[in-house]
C-alpha cells in the first residue's frame, strides 16, 4: 500500500545522465598533464613548480576579484581557471620572472575569459591569450631559454625568477637556443631522441614529446578531446613541412622534426583541442586542424619567429565562428546544407 504520497517533482525527462561533467573533463586534462609537469620539474628544477603555481595563482585571483560575489562559488568550482593557469604556465620559459608569470595568468583570465563573459563565452584560448600578451609585452624575457638541466640541479632556482616586479630580470644561467631557434637561425637539427625525451631547452611543458603523447592517449581514452584536431594538425604540418623539405632540405626541417620540436605537440593536443574555442562539427575540426598545421609551417618556415604554434592556434580561433558557420552538420534526411 502507498502509505504516504510523496511530493512529486515535475522535472522534464530525460531522467538519466551520463557521468562526465565539465569540471571532471577539466580535471582529466590536469591528470593527463601530471607526467609533463613532473618532467618539467625534473628538467628545470623546483623553479618550474614555482612558475606553474604563480600562473595558476594569478589566474585564480583575477577570477576571484572580478567575478560578482554571487557567482564566485560556481565559477571557482568548474576547474577551468585552474586548467588555464596550468596550460599557460607550461608554455613559459623556465627562467621567466615570477611577476611576469603572475601578470600572464591575470591577462589570460582577464582578457582571455572574464571580459567575454566567463567560461564558454570566450572565443580565443585564454591560456594562449595570456601567452601572446606576455610574448608581446616582454619579448626578451619570453625568448630567453635556459638549458634543460638534470636532477643534480634540482634545488637551484634561477635568480631571474625572483626579479622584482616591473624590473628587468638578470639571468644567471647561460641561455640556450631552442631546437627551433637552432634550426631557424643556424640550420642545426636536433636529434629526434632528445626531442622525444625532452632534455632540450624550451618552454616548461613542451619539451618531452613522449609524455605529451601519453597524456593525449589518456585524454583520447577518456574521450575528452576531439581526436580529429590533433590528427589534422599532425597530418597537415607533416605534409606541408615535407613538401618544403623536398624543395630545400637545408633550410627547412623534415616532417618528424617539425612534429616533435617546439610546442607543436603541446599545442595540438592540449591547446587547439580546447572545446570552447575550436569548431563543433567534425568537418569544422578537420578544417581547423589543417589550418593550424599550415600556419605553423608557414610561420616557422617563412616568418620572423622560430615558433608559430601559438599564433597559428589563435588565428584559427579567430576563424572558428566562420568555420562553424559553414560546416553545420548535414541534418538527418536532408541534403547537405549549402552555405
Amino acid at each position, binding site marked *: *500500500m*502507498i*502509505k*504516504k*504520497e*510523496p511530493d*512529486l*517533482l*515535475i*522535472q*522534464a*525527462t*530525460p*531522467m*538519466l*545522465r*551520463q557521468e*562526465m*561533467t*565539465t*569540471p*571532471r*573533463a577539466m580535471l582529466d586534462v590536469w591528470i593527463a598533464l601530471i607526467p609533463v609537469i613532473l618532467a618539467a620539474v625534473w628538467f628545470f628544477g623546483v623553479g618550474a613548480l614555482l612558475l606553474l603555481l604563480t600562473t595558476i595563482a594569478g589566474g585564480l585571483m583575477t577570477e576571484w576579484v572580478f567575478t560578482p560575489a554571487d557567482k564566485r562559488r*560556481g565559477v571557482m*568550482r*568548474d576547474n*577551468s581557471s585552474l586548467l588555464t593557469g596550468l596550460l599557460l604556465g607550461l608554455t613559459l620559459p623556465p627562467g621567466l620572472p615570477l611577476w611576469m608569470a603572475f601578470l600572464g595568468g591575470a591577462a589570460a583570465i582577464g582578457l582571455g575569459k572574464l571580459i567575454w563573459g*566567463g*567560461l*564558454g*563565452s570566450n572565443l580565443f584560448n585564454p591560456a594562449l591569450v595570456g601567452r601572446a600578451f606576455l610574448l608581446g609585452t616582454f619579448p626578451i624575457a619570453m625568448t630567453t631559454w635556459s638549458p634543460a638541466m638534470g636532477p643534480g640541479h634540482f634545488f637551484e632556482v634561477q635568480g631571474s625568477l625572483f626579479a622584482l616586479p616591473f624590473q628587468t630580470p638578470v639571468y644567471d644561467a647561460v641561455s640556450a637556443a631552442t631546437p627551433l631557434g637552432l634550426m631557424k637561425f643556424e640550420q642545426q637539427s636536433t636529434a629526434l631522441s632528445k626531442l622525444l625525451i625532452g632534455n632540450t631547452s624550451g618552454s616548461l611543458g613542451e619539451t618531452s614529446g613522449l609524455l605529451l603523447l601519453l597524456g593525449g592517449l589518456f585524454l583520447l581514452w577518456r*574521450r575528452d*578531446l*576531439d*581526436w*580529429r584536431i590533433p590528427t589534422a594538425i599532425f597530418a597537415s604540418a607533416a605534409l606541408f613541412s615535407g613538401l618544403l623539405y623536398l624543395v630545400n632540405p637545408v633550410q627547412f626541417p623534415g616532417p618528424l622534426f617539425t612534429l616533435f620540436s617546439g610546442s607543436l605537440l603541446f599545442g595540438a593536443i592540449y591547446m587547439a583541442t580546447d*572545446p*570552447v574555442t*575550436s569548431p*563543433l*562539427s*567534425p568537418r569544422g*575540426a578537420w578544417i581547423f586542424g589543417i589550418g593550424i598545421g599550415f600556419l605553423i609551417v608557414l610561420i616557422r618556415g617563412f616568418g620572423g619567429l622560430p615558433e608559430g604554434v601559438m599564433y597559428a592556434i589563435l588565428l584559427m580561433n579567430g576563424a572558428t565562428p566562420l568555420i*562553424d558557420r559553414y560546416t*553545420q*552538420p*548535414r*541534418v*538527418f*534526411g*536532408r541534403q547537405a546544407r549549402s552555405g
Partner: protein
Amino acid sequence: MHSLNPMNLLRGSFRHGVHPAAHKEQTVDLPIQRVPFGDRYLMPLGQHIGAPSKPVVGVGQRLYRGQIIAEPGAFVSTFLHSPVTGRVIDIGPHRHTDGTFKPAIEIEADPYATQQLPPAQTRDWKKLDITAFIGEVQRAGIVGMGGAAFPAHVKYSIPEGQQITELLVNGAECEPYLTNDHRLMVERPEALLRGIEILLEKLGAARATIGVEANKPDAIEILRDHLSPDLPVEVVSLPVKYPQGAEKMLIKAVYGQEVPAGQLPRDLGVTVNNVGTVVAIADWFDTGMPLIERVVTVSGPGAAYPSNLIVPLGTSVRDVLSFCGGLRSETREVVMGGPMMGSPIASLDVPVMKGTSGILAFTNTETLRPPEYPCIRCGRCLEACPYFLNPSRLARLAKARLFSEMKDYRVQDCVECGSCTFTCPSGIPIVQLIRTAKDNLAHASRKGEPT
C-alpha cells in the same frame, strides 16, 4: 567527437545516439501479470494523436466491456471502448497525464460483473478488402503502442500510387527500464506473428522484418523458433543504442536508408509498427477484443515490486502502483513512459492510456540534477544527436531567445529524444530549451507573426 565506437562500422545501426544504462534486469524475467479489476476507470477522450473522440454514451448509461463509448472526431482519431462492464458516472474534465484537465468519461465498474468480453463476432479478415480492413482497425481503436499513440488506421491508409513493400515491426524497445514489448515478444510470439500475417496480406507488403535490439536474445530466439517457412518474416538483431526505437532510426538501422526530411516511411514503401500494435491487431481479429488493455512496465528504483502488467485502460496509476506494492518512500518523481522521453506526472490519479508503456518511479539519485555549467561546446551533443542537429548551438540560441534563428538550424527536425541532454557534461537541459523554443515558434506562427 566520440564516434570511435566500432559499432558504427557494423551493419544495422544508425549513426550517433547514446548508450544509457539499460536498467532492464529488474523486470526482464518477470512474466506479465493481470491487474485485477478495480472500481473506477477514467477514459480521456484524447488518448491519441489527432482530434479527440466524441462520446456516444450518456451519464448513467450501463456499459459492457468492450462497448464503444466514443467515436472518432475526425479522420485522424479513433474509437474508444469501455475497459469494463459498468456504468458511466461522469463525462467532463478530469486530470490528464500532462497536468491539465481534459474531457474524459468516468466509468464505475460493476463489482459483480464477470468482466468477460461478449461473444466474439466472426471477423474473417481474409474476406476484407483494404478499405474494410482499415475500418476494422479504426473500429478496434488501435493506435501505435510504442508511446506516440498515432492512430494505426491512418498509417495504413496509403495514398493512390504508393505501395507498402516492407513491414517493419519495432521490437527495439530502446528506452531503459521498459520491458513490456520484450515480454510480449517472449510470451505471445504466436499472436505477434499472426498480426504480421494479417498486416502482410492486407497491406500487400512483400516481407516483414522484426527489429529487436541484441540485449533481448531470448525474444529473438523465441521469435525465430516460431517463424514458419510460409511467412516471409525475418528477425534482425540490432546493436543496442538509443533511440533505436524511433521510427526513422529503425529504418536507417534495418534498411540503411534515411527517410528524407518532411517525408514519411511510407514514401520509402515501409510501414513501422510496434509489437504491441501488431499484437492488438491480432487480438481484434482473433478474439474481437478492441484496444481496452495494454502491457505496462512498472519499474524504477522507487517501485517496491517492479512488474510487467496487463492493465485495463483507464486504471489510475495509483491503483496500478498499489497492486505491485506501491512506491518506496524515497520516490521523488513518477514518469509515464520511458525515462528518456516519457513525461513526469504530478498526481497519481491519472489513468493509464493507450500510449502508456511504463510507469517509472525515481528517487533522488536520478532526480538530483548536476549543477549547470556554461556550455563549453565540447560537441558531445553533436555526437549524440541522431538527427545530426547542432544541439549546442540550438540551446545557446534558445537561451538568447533567438527562436527564429533556430529554424535555420532545423530545430523543427528535432524529435526530442533527449540524447543531447543525457550526454551534456555541463548539465544543460538542452531538450527542454528546444521544446520551449518550438512552443514559442508554434505560438508565433499561430499568431501569424513573421518568424
